[in-house]
Protein backbone atom coordinates (compact mmCIF):
# COMPACT_ATOMS: atom_id res chain seq x y z
CA UNK A 1 0.00 0.00 0.00
CA UNK A 2 2.84 2.37 0.92
CA UNK A 3 4.74 1.57 -2.31
CA UNK A 4 1.57 2.13 -4.31
CA UNK A 5 1.02 5.46 -2.53
CA UNK A 6 4.63 6.51 -3.19
CA UNK A 7 4.29 5.69 -6.90
CA UNK A 8 0.94 7.47 -7.10
CA UNK A 9 2.60 10.66 -5.83
CA UNK A 10 4.65 10.82 -9.04
CA UNK A 11 1.44 10.97 -11.08
CA UNK A 12 -0.52 13.13 -8.64
CA UNK A 13 -0.82 16.10 -10.99
CA UNK A 14 -1.75 13.99 -14.02
CA UNK A 15 -5.52 14.12 -13.66
CA UNK A 16 -8.28 14.63 -11.15
CA UNK A 17 -9.14 10.93 -11.20
CA UNK A 18 -5.61 9.83 -10.22
CA UNK A 19 -5.61 12.45 -7.45
CA UNK A 20 -8.64 10.66 -5.96
CA UNK A 21 -6.75 7.35 -5.80
CA UNK A 22 -3.72 9.04 -4.22
CA UNK A 23 -5.93 10.58 -1.52
CA UNK A 24 -7.68 7.24 -1.03
CA UNK A 25 -4.32 5.52 -0.50
CA UNK A 26 -3.23 8.23 1.93
CA UNK A 27 -6.39 7.85 4.02
CA UNK A 28 -6.09 4.03 3.88
CA UNK A 29 -2.53 4.23 5.20
CA UNK A 30 -3.61 6.58 8.00
CA UNK A 31 -6.48 4.28 8.95
CA UNK A 32 -4.23 1.20 8.96
CA UNK A 33 -1.69 2.98 11.18
CA UNK A 34 -4.43 3.93 13.66
CA UNK A 35 -5.80 0.36 13.53
CA UNK A 36 -2.35 -1.05 14.30
CA UNK A 37 -1.91 1.36 17.21
CA UNK A 38 -5.35 0.38 18.53
CA UNK A 39 -4.49 -3.32 18.18
CA UNK A 40 -1.28 -2.86 20.19
CA UNK A 41 -2.92 -0.81 22.89
CA UNK A 42 -5.86 -3.23 23.07
CA UNK A 43 -8.46 -0.67 22.01
CA UNK A 44 -11.46 -1.48 19.83
CA UNK A 45 -10.79 -0.33 16.30
CA UNK A 46 -13.81 -1.45 14.28
CA UNK A 47 -15.42 1.91 14.91
CA UNK A 48 -12.84 3.40 12.51
CA UNK A 49 -14.28 1.39 9.63
CA UNK A 50 -17.70 3.00 10.15
CA UNK A 51 -16.07 6.25 9.06
CA UNK A 52 -13.42 4.91 6.71
CA UNK A 53 -15.88 2.95 4.49
CA UNK A 54 -17.95 6.01 3.39
CA UNK A 55 -14.76 8.03 2.81
CA UNK A 56 -13.29 5.17 0.80
CA UNK A 57 -16.45 4.91 -1.31
CA UNK A 58 -16.50 8.68 -1.79
CA UNK A 59 -12.99 8.71 -3.23
CA UNK A 60 -13.41 5.62 -5.40
CA UNK A 61 -16.76 6.94 -6.61
CA UNK A 62 -15.18 10.29 -7.47
CA UNK A 63 -12.37 8.48 -9.27
CA UNK A 64 -14.93 6.70 -11.47
CA UNK A 65 -16.88 9.96 -11.88
CA UNK A 66 -13.84 11.75 -13.29
CA UNK A 67 -12.46 8.88 -15.37
CA UNK A 68 -15.60 8.05 -17.39
CA UNK A 69 -17.07 10.60 -19.82
CA UNK A 70 -20.52 9.05 -20.21
CA UNK A 71 -23.11 11.40 -18.67
CA UNK A 72 -25.52 8.67 -17.56
CA UNK A 73 -22.72 6.89 -15.76
CA UNK A 74 -21.62 10.14 -14.13
CA UNK A 75 -25.11 10.84 -12.77
CA UNK A 76 -25.41 7.24 -11.57
CA UNK A 77 -22.03 7.57 -9.88
CA UNK A 78 -23.01 10.78 -8.08
CA UNK A 79 -26.40 9.38 -7.03
CA UNK A 80 -24.75 6.23 -5.67
CA UNK A 81 -22.25 8.34 -3.65
CA UNK A 82 -25.03 10.46 -2.15
CA UNK A 83 -27.17 7.39 -1.44
CA UNK A 84 -24.29 5.49 0.14
CA UNK A 85 -23.20 8.42 2.32
CA UNK A 86 -26.79 8.82 3.45
CA UNK A 87 -27.05 5.12 4.36
CA UNK A 88 -23.74 5.32 6.23
CA UNK A 89 -24.84 8.38 8.20
CA UNK A 90 -28.12 6.73 9.12
CA UNK A 91 -26.29 3.55 10.06
CA UNK A 92 -23.86 5.45 12.32
CA UNK A 93 -26.71 7.20 14.11
CA UNK A 94 -28.91 4.13 14.44
CA UNK A 95 -26.22 1.58 15.15
CA UNK A 96 -25.63 1.11 18.86
CA UNK A 97 -22.81 -1.33 18.24
CA UNK A 98 -20.26 0.94 16.61
CA UNK A 99 -17.48 -1.19 18.03
CA UNK A 100 -18.51 -4.10 15.80
CA UNK A 101 -17.42 -4.46 12.16
CA UNK A 102 -19.78 -2.57 9.75
CA UNK A 103 -20.65 -5.64 7.72
CA UNK A 104 -23.78 -4.30 6.04
CA UNK A 105 -22.14 -1.06 4.94
CA UNK A 106 -19.07 -2.89 3.68
CA UNK A 107 -21.27 -5.32 1.77
CA UNK A 108 -23.25 -2.48 0.23
CA UNK A 109 -20.04 -0.65 -0.69
CA UNK A 110 -18.67 -3.81 -2.24
CA UNK A 111 -21.88 -4.30 -4.26
CA UNK A 112 -21.88 -0.69 -5.53
CA UNK A 113 -18.18 -0.83 -6.42
CA UNK A 114 -18.73 -4.03 -8.37
CA UNK A 115 -21.38 -2.25 -10.42
CA UNK A 116 -19.29 0.91 -10.87
CA UNK A 117 -16.12 -0.91 -11.89
CA UNK A 118 -18.03 -3.15 -14.33
CA UNK A 119 -19.77 -0.16 -15.91
CA UNK A 120 -16.55 1.86 -16.06
CA UNK A 121 -14.91 -0.99 -17.95
CA UNK A 122 -17.80 -1.11 -20.40
CA UNK A 123 -17.68 2.68 -20.91
CA UNK A 124 -13.90 2.76 -21.26
CA UNK A 125 -12.98 5.38 -23.88
CA UNK A 126 -10.83 4.02 -26.69
CA UNK A 127 -7.48 5.48 -27.62
CA UNK A 128 -6.22 4.96 -31.18
CA UNK A 129 -2.58 4.80 -30.13
CA UNK A 130 -2.87 2.53 -27.09
CA UNK A 131 -3.79 -1.10 -26.66
CA UNK A 132 -6.18 -1.74 -23.78
CA UNK A 133 -3.45 -3.14 -21.52
CA UNK A 134 -1.64 0.20 -21.74
CA UNK A 135 -4.66 2.15 -20.47
CA UNK A 136 -4.36 2.99 -16.77
CA UNK A 137 -8.13 3.25 -16.20
CA UNK A 138 -8.48 -0.37 -17.38
CA UNK A 139 -6.09 -1.58 -14.67
CA UNK A 140 -7.64 0.61 -11.96
CA UNK A 141 -11.11 -0.71 -12.78
CA UNK A 142 -9.88 -4.31 -12.96
CA UNK A 143 -8.17 -3.82 -9.57
CA UNK A 144 -11.38 -2.62 -7.90
CA UNK A 145 -13.44 -5.27 -9.69
CA UNK A 146 -11.24 -8.18 -8.59
CA UNK A 147 -10.82 -6.98 -5.02
CA UNK A 148 -14.52 -6.34 -4.53
CA UNK A 149 -15.43 -9.67 -6.10
CA UNK A 150 -13.36 -11.47 -3.50
CA UNK A 151 -14.72 -9.26 -0.73
CA UNK A 152 -18.24 -9.97 -1.96
CA UNK A 153 -17.70 -13.70 -1.32
CA UNK A 154 -15.81 -13.21 1.95
CA UNK A 155 -18.46 -10.93 3.45
CA UNK A 156 -21.27 -13.20 2.30
CA UNK A 157 -20.48 -15.88 4.87
CA UNK A 158 -20.59 -15.76 8.65
CA UNK A 159 -17.08 -16.14 9.94
CA UNK A 160 -17.79 -17.58 13.34
CA UNK A 161 -15.35 -20.43 12.97
CA UNK A 162 -11.71 -19.57 13.63
CA UNK A 163 -10.38 -21.65 10.73
CA UNK A 164 -12.79 -20.07 8.25
CA UNK A 165 -11.91 -16.66 9.54
CA UNK A 166 -8.23 -17.38 8.98
CA UNK A 167 -8.82 -18.75 5.47
CA UNK A 168 -10.91 -15.74 4.54
CA UNK A 169 -8.30 -13.40 6.05
CA UNK A 170 -5.68 -15.09 3.88
CA UNK A 171 -7.88 -14.70 0.77
CA UNK A 172 -8.51 -11.07 1.67
CA UNK A 173 -4.79 -10.46 2.16
CA UNK A 174 -3.94 -11.99 -1.22
CA UNK A 175 -6.56 -9.92 -2.99
CA UNK A 176 -5.36 -6.82 -1.13
CA UNK A 177 -1.87 -7.45 -2.52
CA UNK A 178 -3.37 -8.01 -5.98
CA UNK A 179 -5.32 -4.75 -5.66
CA UNK A 180 -2.23 -2.69 -4.91
CA UNK A 181 -0.19 -4.52 -7.54
CA UNK A 182 -2.81 -3.72 -10.20
CA UNK A 183 -3.04 -0.12 -9.01
CA UNK A 184 0.75 0.16 -9.42
CA UNK A 185 0.46 -1.27 -12.94
CA UNK A 186 -2.23 1.34 -13.63
CA UNK A 187 -0.02 4.17 -12.38
CA UNK A 188 2.93 2.93 -14.43
CA UNK A 189 0.73 3.04 -17.53
CA UNK A 190 0.49 6.80 -16.98
CA UNK A 191 4.17 7.17 -17.90
CA UNK A 192 4.25 9.99 -20.45
CA UNK A 193 7.24 9.04 -22.56
CA UNK A 194 5.16 7.08 -25.00
CA UNK A 195 2.19 9.44 -24.85
CA UNK A 196 4.29 12.41 -25.96
CA UNK A 197 6.04 10.84 -28.89
CA UNK A 198 3.34 8.55 -30.27
Amino acid sequence: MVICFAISMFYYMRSLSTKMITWLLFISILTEIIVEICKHTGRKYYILYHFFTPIEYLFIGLYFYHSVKNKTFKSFCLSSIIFFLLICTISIFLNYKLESFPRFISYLECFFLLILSTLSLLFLDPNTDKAIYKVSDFWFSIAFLLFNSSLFIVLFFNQNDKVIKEIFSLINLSFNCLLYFLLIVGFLCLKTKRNIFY
Partner: protein
Amino acid sequence: MFEDKKEYILLIILSTSILIFLISVVIVTITRYKVKQQALFEEKNLLQTQFSQTLLQSQIEIQEQTLQHISRELHDNLGQVASLIKINLTTLKLNEPEKAVEKIEHTKDLTRQLIADIKSLSVSLGSDRIAQTGLAKAIETEVERLNKTGEFVAIYELKGAMPEIDGDKSLILYRMAQEVLNNMVKHSEAKHINILLHVNENLFILAFRDDGIGFNAAEKMNASGAGLRNLKNRATLINAQLHIHSLPGNGTEITIEMPL
Protein backbone atom coordinates in the same frame (compact mmCIF):
# COMPACT_ATOMS: atom_id res chain seq x y z
CA MET B 1 -15.10 -25.46 9.22
CA PHE B 2 -18.59 -24.68 7.83
CA GLU B 3 -21.34 -26.01 10.03
CA ASP B 4 -23.61 -26.78 7.17
CA LYS B 5 -22.84 -28.56 3.88
CA LYS B 6 -25.16 -26.08 2.20
CA GLU B 7 -22.66 -23.33 2.96
CA TYR B 8 -19.94 -25.24 1.05
CA ILE B 9 -22.22 -25.57 -1.95
CA LEU B 10 -23.16 -21.91 -1.67
CA LEU B 11 -19.50 -20.93 -1.52
CA ILE B 12 -18.72 -22.96 -4.64
CA ILE B 13 -21.72 -21.61 -6.55
CA LEU B 14 -20.99 -18.03 -5.53
CA SER B 15 -17.28 -18.28 -6.35
CA THR B 16 -17.98 -19.90 -9.72
CA SER B 17 -20.61 -17.29 -10.58
CA ILE B 18 -18.28 -14.46 -9.66
CA LEU B 19 -15.46 -16.04 -11.67
CA ILE B 20 -17.68 -16.45 -14.73
CA PHE B 21 -18.90 -12.89 -14.25
CA LEU B 22 -15.32 -11.56 -14.08
CA ILE B 23 -14.21 -13.46 -17.16
CA SER B 24 -17.28 -12.27 -19.09
CA VAL B 25 -16.69 -8.64 -18.06
CA VAL B 26 -13.06 -8.78 -19.16
CA ILE B 27 -13.90 -10.42 -22.51
CA VAL B 28 -16.76 -7.98 -23.22
CA THR B 29 -14.54 -5.02 -22.21
CA ILE B 30 -11.68 -6.04 -24.48
CA THR B 31 -14.02 -6.77 -27.40
CA ARG B 32 -15.91 -3.48 -26.97
CA TYR B 33 -12.66 -1.55 -26.65
CA LYS B 34 -11.29 -3.06 -29.85
CA VAL B 35 -14.51 -2.34 -31.77
CA LYS B 36 -14.60 1.25 -30.49
CA GLN B 37 -10.89 1.68 -31.22
CA GLN B 38 -11.36 0.43 -34.79
CA ALA B 39 -14.31 2.80 -35.33
CA LEU B 40 -12.26 5.70 -33.95
CA PHE B 41 -9.33 4.76 -36.14
CA GLU B 42 -11.54 4.66 -39.24
CA GLU B 43 -13.08 8.02 -38.32
CA LYS B 44 -9.62 9.51 -37.88
CA ASN B 45 -8.51 8.12 -41.24
CA LEU B 46 -11.62 9.50 -42.93
CA LEU B 47 -10.96 12.94 -41.44
CA GLN B 48 -7.35 12.78 -42.60
CA THR B 49 -8.43 11.83 -46.12
CA GLN B 50 -10.97 14.66 -46.17
CA PHE B 51 -8.32 17.06 -44.94
CA SER B 52 -5.88 15.99 -47.66
CA GLN B 53 -8.58 16.29 -50.32
CA THR B 54 -9.55 19.77 -49.16
CA LEU B 55 -5.92 20.77 -49.04
CA LEU B 56 -5.36 19.54 -52.57
CA GLN B 57 -8.51 21.28 -53.77
CA SER B 58 -7.38 24.52 -52.09
CA GLN B 59 -3.98 24.27 -53.76
CA ILE B 60 -5.57 23.75 -57.18
CA GLU B 61 -7.97 26.63 -56.63
CA ILE B 62 -5.13 28.91 -55.57
CA GLN B 63 -3.13 27.91 -58.63
CA GLU B 64 -6.10 28.62 -60.89
CA GLN B 65 -6.64 31.97 -59.25
CA THR B 66 -2.96 32.81 -59.58
CA LEU B 67 -3.04 31.98 -63.30
CA GLN B 68 -6.16 34.10 -63.76
CA HIS B 69 -4.49 36.92 -61.88
CA ILE B 70 -1.34 36.66 -64.02
CA SER B 71 -3.43 36.62 -67.20
CA ARG B 72 -5.35 39.72 -66.04
CA GLU B 73 -2.18 41.50 -64.98
CA LEU B 74 -0.44 40.70 -68.29
CA HIS B 75 -3.41 41.92 -70.31
CA ASP B 76 -4.58 44.90 -68.27
CA ASN B 77 -1.40 46.18 -66.72
CA LEU B 78 1.87 44.91 -68.09
CA GLY B 79 0.56 44.79 -71.68
CA GLN B 80 -0.74 48.35 -71.44
CA VAL B 81 2.51 49.67 -70.00
CA ALA B 82 4.57 47.82 -72.62
CA SER B 83 2.31 49.22 -75.35
CA LEU B 84 2.80 52.73 -73.98
CA ILE B 85 6.56 52.20 -74.00
CA LYS B 86 6.37 50.99 -77.59
CA ILE B 87 4.20 53.97 -78.63
CA ASN B 88 6.58 56.37 -76.87
CA LEU B 89 9.56 54.88 -78.62
CA THR B 90 7.96 54.74 -82.09
CA THR B 91 6.71 58.32 -81.85
CA LEU B 92 10.05 59.57 -80.61
CA LYS B 93 11.32 62.39 -82.82
CA LEU B 94 15.02 62.95 -82.45
CA ASN B 95 14.86 66.25 -84.37
CA GLU B 96 12.80 67.75 -81.51
CA PRO B 97 15.25 67.33 -78.61
CA GLU B 98 13.07 68.87 -75.86
CA LYS B 99 10.08 66.67 -76.60
CA ALA B 100 12.37 63.68 -77.10
CA VAL B 101 13.91 64.11 -73.64
CA GLU B 102 10.45 64.40 -72.08
CA LYS B 103 9.33 61.24 -73.85
CA ILE B 104 12.47 59.36 -72.88
CA GLU B 105 11.94 60.37 -69.24
CA HIS B 106 8.32 59.21 -69.45
CA THR B 107 9.46 55.95 -71.04
CA LYS B 108 12.00 55.48 -68.26
CA ASP B 109 9.23 55.91 -65.67
CA LEU B 110 7.06 53.43 -67.51
CA THR B 111 9.93 50.93 -67.70
CA ARG B 112 10.52 51.34 -63.95
CA GLN B 113 6.82 50.71 -63.32
CA LEU B 114 6.91 47.69 -65.64
CA ILE B 115 9.88 46.20 -63.76
CA ALA B 116 8.15 46.76 -60.39
CA ASP B 117 4.94 45.15 -61.66
CA ILE B 118 6.87 42.16 -63.04
CA LYS B 119 8.60 41.78 -59.66
CA SER B 120 5.34 41.85 -57.73
CA LEU B 121 3.84 39.40 -60.20
CA SER B 122 6.78 37.04 -59.80
CA VAL B 123 6.19 37.06 -56.03
CA SER B 124 2.63 35.93 -56.58
CA LEU B 125 3.86 33.13 -58.85
CA GLY B 126 5.64 31.20 -56.09
CA SER B 127 3.74 28.02 -55.19
CA ASP B 128 4.62 28.29 -51.49
CA ARG B 129 3.85 32.01 -51.40
CA ILE B 130 1.73 31.70 -48.26
CA ALA B 131 4.38 29.70 -46.46
CA GLN B 132 7.00 32.27 -47.44
CA THR B 133 5.13 35.49 -46.84
CA GLY B 134 2.84 34.28 -44.08
CA LEU B 135 -0.92 34.22 -43.88
CA ALA B 136 -1.26 37.80 -42.61
CA LYS B 137 0.78 39.19 -45.51
CA ALA B 138 -1.07 37.03 -48.05
CA ILE B 139 -4.42 38.37 -46.81
CA GLU B 140 -3.03 41.92 -46.89
CA THR B 141 -2.04 41.38 -50.54
CA GLU B 142 -5.59 40.24 -51.29
CA VAL B 143 -6.90 43.43 -49.68
CA GLU B 144 -4.47 45.52 -51.76
CA ARG B 145 -5.77 43.82 -54.89
CA LEU B 146 -9.33 44.67 -53.86
CA ASN B 147 -8.40 48.31 -53.34
CA LYS B 148 -6.65 48.41 -56.73
CA THR B 149 -9.97 47.70 -58.48
CA GLY B 150 -11.20 51.06 -57.22
CA GLU B 151 -14.69 49.64 -56.63
CA PHE B 152 -14.18 49.00 -52.93
CA VAL B 153 -12.58 50.57 -49.94
CA ALA B 154 -11.08 47.62 -48.11
CA ILE B 155 -9.46 48.12 -44.71
CA TYR B 156 -7.24 45.46 -43.20
CA GLU B 157 -6.29 45.42 -39.54
CA LEU B 158 -4.04 43.01 -37.62
CA LYS B 159 -4.37 42.89 -33.84
CA GLY B 160 -1.91 40.83 -31.83
CA ALA B 161 1.17 38.88 -32.84
CA MET B 162 0.71 36.36 -35.62
CA PRO B 163 1.26 32.85 -34.21
CA GLU B 164 2.94 30.02 -36.06
CA ILE B 165 0.17 28.23 -37.90
CA ASP B 166 0.67 24.91 -39.59
CA GLY B 167 1.32 25.36 -43.35
CA ASP B 168 -1.67 23.26 -44.43
CA LYS B 169 -4.00 25.09 -42.08
CA SER B 170 -2.67 28.44 -43.33
CA LEU B 171 -3.42 27.42 -46.89
CA ILE B 172 -6.98 26.42 -46.04
CA LEU B 173 -7.48 29.63 -44.01
CA TYR B 174 -6.15 31.70 -46.91
CA ARG B 175 -8.45 29.92 -49.33
CA MET B 176 -11.39 30.57 -46.99
CA ALA B 177 -10.46 34.25 -46.82
CA GLN B 178 -10.30 34.39 -50.62
CA GLU B 179 -13.68 32.68 -50.89
CA VAL B 180 -15.30 35.14 -48.45
CA LEU B 181 -13.78 38.16 -50.22
CA ASN B 182 -14.77 36.81 -53.66
CA ASN B 183 -18.35 36.35 -52.45
CA MET B 184 -18.39 39.88 -51.07
CA VAL B 185 -17.06 41.25 -54.38
CA LYS B 186 -19.50 39.23 -56.49
CA HIS B 187 -22.73 39.42 -54.50
CA SER B 188 -22.63 42.01 -51.73
CA GLU B 189 -22.80 45.26 -53.74
CA ALA B 190 -20.80 46.70 -50.86
CA LYS B 191 -18.63 49.81 -50.94
CA HIS B 192 -16.68 49.17 -47.77
CA ILE B 193 -15.09 45.93 -46.63
CA ASN B 194 -13.35 45.54 -43.28
CA ILE B 195 -11.00 42.65 -42.55
CA LEU B 196 -9.81 42.09 -39.02
CA LEU B 197 -7.23 39.50 -38.03
CA HIS B 198 -7.24 39.23 -34.26
CA VAL B 199 -4.92 36.86 -32.42
CA ASN B 200 -5.07 36.43 -28.68
CA GLU B 201 -3.52 33.87 -26.36
CA ASN B 202 -5.55 30.90 -27.50
CA LEU B 203 -7.75 32.04 -30.35
CA PHE B 204 -7.20 33.05 -33.95
CA ILE B 205 -10.03 35.22 -35.29
CA LEU B 206 -10.43 36.29 -38.88
CA ALA B 207 -13.44 38.58 -39.34
CA PHE B 208 -14.92 40.11 -42.51
CA ARG B 209 -17.59 42.81 -42.58
CA ASP B 210 -19.23 44.60 -45.50
CA ASP B 211 -21.92 47.26 -45.86
CA GLY B 212 -23.63 45.48 -48.74
CA ILE B 213 -27.14 44.21 -49.35
CA GLY B 214 -26.78 41.25 -47.01
CA PHE B 215 -28.74 38.01 -47.23
CA ASN B 216 -30.71 35.57 -45.16
CA ALA B 217 -27.88 33.49 -43.68
CA ALA B 218 -30.08 30.62 -42.47
CA GLU B 219 -31.76 30.31 -45.86
CA LYS B 220 -28.47 30.38 -47.76
CA MET B 221 -26.91 27.72 -45.52
CA ASN B 222 -29.78 25.36 -46.29
CA ALA B 223 -29.82 26.19 -49.99
CA SER B 224 -28.09 23.99 -52.53
CA GLY B 225 -25.24 26.47 -53.19
CA ALA B 226 -21.86 25.01 -52.40
CA GLY B 227 -20.05 28.24 -51.39
CA LEU B 228 -21.12 28.56 -47.77
CA ARG B 229 -21.18 24.79 -47.28
CA ASN B 230 -17.60 24.59 -48.55
CA LEU B 231 -16.57 27.28 -46.09
CA LYS B 232 -18.25 25.41 -43.26
CA ASN B 233 -16.61 22.10 -44.26
CA ARG B 234 -13.20 23.72 -44.45
CA ALA B 235 -13.70 25.30 -41.05
CA THR B 236 -14.60 21.91 -39.56
CA LEU B 237 -11.49 20.32 -41.05
CA ILE B 238 -9.15 22.79 -39.38
CA ASN B 239 -11.11 22.60 -36.11
CA ALA B 240 -12.38 26.15 -36.56
CA GLN B 241 -15.83 27.65 -36.20
CA LEU B 242 -17.58 29.68 -38.85
CA HIS B 243 -20.09 32.35 -37.80
CA ILE B 244 -22.22 34.14 -40.37
CA HIS B 245 -24.35 37.12 -39.38
CA SER B 246 -26.32 38.69 -42.16
CA LEU B 247 -29.76 40.08 -42.84
CA PRO B 248 -31.14 41.59 -46.07
CA GLY B 249 -30.15 45.26 -46.16
CA ASN B 250 -27.86 45.06 -43.15
CA GLY B 251 -24.55 43.93 -44.59
CA THR B 252 -22.71 40.75 -43.74
CA GLU B 253 -20.31 39.70 -41.02
CA ILE B 254 -18.38 36.45 -41.35
CA THR B 255 -16.04 35.25 -38.62
CA ILE B 256 -13.62 32.32 -38.59
CA GLU B 257 -12.52 31.33 -35.10
CA MET B 258 -9.75 28.79 -34.68
CA PRO B 259 -8.36 27.67 -31.30
CA LEU B 260 -4.57 27.79 -31.12
